[in-house]
């Protein structure tokens, strides 16, 4: 099936904080093949690999609005609060964020260890 013609990868997205890499096919705020959704930040986007639907996209990540590091969407690496912030920057400026975010970041510290512990149980 010719679903691939439209999504030539432009390059590899690589999160600067974790090891996540994935090929992206679009950078910007208007993902291709869809008219009804716009992104509120300039994002690295790929076609959603988990569905055959051509116009489904998956946002991989974007730049931190403070330090401009390229970070992925993962909760261990960044958060979005009207803008993208990488987690180190959030922690540095934690007081600038509302309480809800502060609590949330606090909570994230615990599960952030989860992946490594998961690995342990799997091996």
């Amino acid at each position, binding site marked *: *099936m010719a*679903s*691939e013609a439209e*999504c030539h990868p432009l390059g590899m997205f690589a999160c600067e904080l974790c*090891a*996540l*890499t*994935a*090929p992206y096919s679009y*950078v910007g*705020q208007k993902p291709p093949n*869809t*008219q*009804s*959704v*716009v*992104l*509120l*930040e*300039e*994002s690295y986007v*790929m076609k*959603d*690999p*988990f*569905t*055959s639907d051509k*116009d*489904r996209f*998956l*946002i*991989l990540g*974007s*730049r931190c*609005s*403070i330090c*401009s590091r390229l970070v*992925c*969407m*993962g909760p261990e690496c960044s*958060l*979005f*609060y*009207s*803008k*993208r*912030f990488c987690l180190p920057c959030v922690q540095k*400026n934690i*007081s*600038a*964020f*509302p*309480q*809800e*975010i502060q609590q949330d970041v606090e909570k994230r510290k615990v599960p952030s260890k989860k*992946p490594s512990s*998961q*690995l342990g149980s*799997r*091996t």
Partner: protein
Amino acid sequence: MPPPRTREGRDHRDYRRAPTGEEAWEKWDWNCPETRRLLEDSFFRDEDYIRQGSEDCQKFWAFFERLQRFQSAKTSRKEEKDAGCPKHGTSALADLPHTYDPRYRINLSIIGPDARGSRGPGRRLPPERVSEFRQALLHYLDFGQKQAFGRLAKLQRERAALPIAQYGNRILQTLKEHQVVVVAGDTGCGKSTQVPQYLLAAGFSHVACTQPRRIACISLAKRVGFESLSQYGSQVGYQIRFESTRSAATKIVFLTVGLLLRQIQREPSLPQYQVLIVDEVHERHLHNDFLLGILRRLLPRRPDLKVILMSATINISLFSSYFGSAPVVQVPGRLFPITVVYQPQEAEPTTSKSEKLDPRPFLRVLESIDAKYPPEERGDLLVFLSGMAEISAVLEAAQTYASHTQRWVVLPLHSALSVADQDKVFDVAPPGVRKCILSTNIAETSVTIDGIRFVVDSGKVKEMSYDPQAKLQRLQEFWISQASAEQRKGRAGRTGPGVCFRLYAESDYDAFAPYPVPEIRRVALDALVLQMKSMSVGDPRTFPFIEPPPPASLETAILYLRDQGALDSSEALTPIGSLLAQLPVDVVIGKMLILGSMFRLAEPVLTIAAALSVQSPFTRSAQSSPDCATARRPLESDQGDPFTLFNVFNAWVQVKSERSRDSRKWCRRRGIEEHRLYEMANLRRQFKELLEDHGLLAEARAAGPGDSHSRLQQRRERRALYQLKRQHEQGGGRGRKVLRLREEQDGCSSDEDRAGALRAGDSVDIQDVKFKLRHNLEQLQAAASAAQDLSREQMALLKLVLGRGLYPQLAIPDAFNSGRKDSDQIFHTRAKQGAVLHPTCVFAGSPEVLHAREQEVEGCDGNRGDKDRMSSRHQLLAFVSLLETNKPYLVNCVRVPALQAQRPEEEEDEEAAPVSPREVAALSRELLQLMASKVPYSLRRLTGLEAQNLYVGPQTVTAAPSLPGLFGSATLTPHPTKGGYAVTDFLTYNCLTSDADLYSDCLRTFWTCPRCGLHAPLTPVERISHENTCAPDPQDAPPGAEEATPEPLQKASALQRPYHCEACQKDFLFTPTEVLRHRKLHV
């Protein structure tokens, strides 16, 4: 890159416009279908992200309901909080919204209907509700993003956690420096899925990865496609015999070894690949070994081609040294610790009387597991047994135990089970119950079952071995190798620490062979030699195999191919041979196809050849069911098994074309595995295409329905089928089910019905869909109905074609079969005495059709059974294979007229030159006359001693027959070994010794004639005959008297033979004594 702009401004505005004035819309109901429809009409249009009526749409509403519940629970608590945050210096932080709202955490926005103009149905909805809906939709989309991203991250974490992940760079680096790299790693290290991806990531784009099994090609392509995030792209594909997902964009293709060999056959330097991964080389399959040999020769000619050999950590040095000490990257496996318990079976005298396996040692393991491990601790048991008989012996006992304890579900697993029954081993047992899977060595490598904690290893395996002398396949029980034992043990440690019970002593283990016998030493090499010849790799005897096959097997194969006309006397491929090499079937079946298409019997022969090339479609369980047997009976043919299969296939095609949904039920009722019929259909099509490619069959014109309307209709139907196929593929197939305790008590038929009902639940029969997409049902149906109208002549010709194809695989019924019980009928083949009919054979139930029925006794007393009975209706059995398990069995038999089957009738097929239709017609006619000819003859099996003394040759040269005109213009030359004269290559005249006295040679003693003084070694009979001739004439004959001797009388003596005297240049008919006497005259 410019700093990202945000669009929160617009978003804020949207929200501010929407006061939460609940009171104005008290009657608002989100669940009202009309409301929902209005919202859907404006937000879920065709060009929107979510479409009305889609699965996504349903998911959204479910999400929406959950969100509503969550929010109503939260709002009450939320009211008090309104703490502003402190101002901040950093510009990026300066304009953060002061009041927290979850919507600020969402990085997308929807262009709703109002932003695109306020026309449309959305107008009628209150704006605050629309806004609420929009927020929910945003949350939904955000949730979807998080979910998909989570999957992506998880996938990458899992890949990174595989043992091989740390070796990826090393493998790539080594491959840069060397042409061949061996990657050795045990099960679970991830080599098969990861290495192709490392290559892909390193920029290689023409990668082939071979697998020994078709199933593995499909599942690996699927997995690697998923992991490399191109599940719905075409970067990763597979190619197997009947299916391919390969396209121009494919970068990695998984394919079977056999298919790669065929590609090499077409393009010997494999220009289409940059990297070749040969997986599972340690399994030492015939084709794999051959491929390695080919590659070793190819590599110097293709210095740019890279090869990765992947192996379990078995005998790695063998592979490395074969490729000039190629570097090895060894990856540790990922196994949990496994405790090994040796439980040798003490000799129990009670079992000695029967051959049946004693199930008690296996039950003891079940008991000890029950005693030692609490049922809450999950973990299933996998038992390795040697064969199906052993499985059923243990199954019976284990089921009794299971019904008693209620703690086990016992399931068999072997290749003869139906696909549905095989799939059951992947289902899960209810809590507190364990699965006990009784398996052949299929679970050693081919099938991987998760959740196994305990393994019982009987230490035995039944393996096919091959007897090149008798051309007989033998299924025998052997001790396994240490490598297999380790492999079996490893199955217990895939998901957690495990236990392996070995039902043999540690000293036994030490005595096991280190590795299994490679396939090349166990099987017939006919097909391999044929393929080698067609690939022009030179003399098979000197081919650099990694481990050479036994020379005897090679010689037998070469001789056989020469006998079959595939090789000529210089062992070069004949035209027929090169054709046979193209057909992926046994030589005998290939011959059938070629002959069939020559005699315009292509359609029926295609079906029969396909049917004989797949596993039997008859399920074992049905053998014991009388209902199945009755339902099957009308399909049985008393001509033989190939015709029964022919009938089954044709009847099935009819069912398919009339009411395709019923075909599954139709098969089940008759104890037929439908899957095999699909395979037959595929194979049949492949044969047809091959015959067409080689001009043996006129290509069927693509005769579509005439008018455009029905063409359109047809196209529409196909599109609908493709749609169904796609949907099924996305659905991911069959999910796991929970097994019922004591499932086995249901009895097999109801069990199967239930399975059928369950499967019927998913309304699409995907096999049926695929079948319809792949085949032209109308054509098949036409062929099937034509089969019913085969004339008697065509039928006779068809049998001749079959018999000729199978020649010399013929068996003669034993002379005394008519006096034996049905089950005791015995048959003799060229190399094997006393073979019996396979129990599934149609003649096993009605052997009387094989007896020479009519009593055309002419000059022969009738009290000798079939022995020496004169008849024109003797029959032989042509069989497809000879398989020895506890007895030698003839498999897939067809009865053929004995005399006619012996006559190799055509010369034409030797040359591939086109034969004119008239000649074929004439030949067919003559053959039919031959078939109808009624020559009374008798049929007898030669004993060993008889065979030794069959010919007068090689020492004696008999007289050339003085019968001018009998053999036309054929020139007669003495036959070098048989004696007599070769008329054609199948007829040698006068080479048989007379059959009267076989044992006389043993009785030969020196004797002096009292009358004439002759002193010679004579047998008693010769002595008497000498005395008879010597008595009346005591005087010496006068010189020259021999010239007056009249031509010997026809019936003078059974001992007389033609004798040509060199001295007097005359032909005589002399007894040995007379010869001696005559010679004396010349002295």
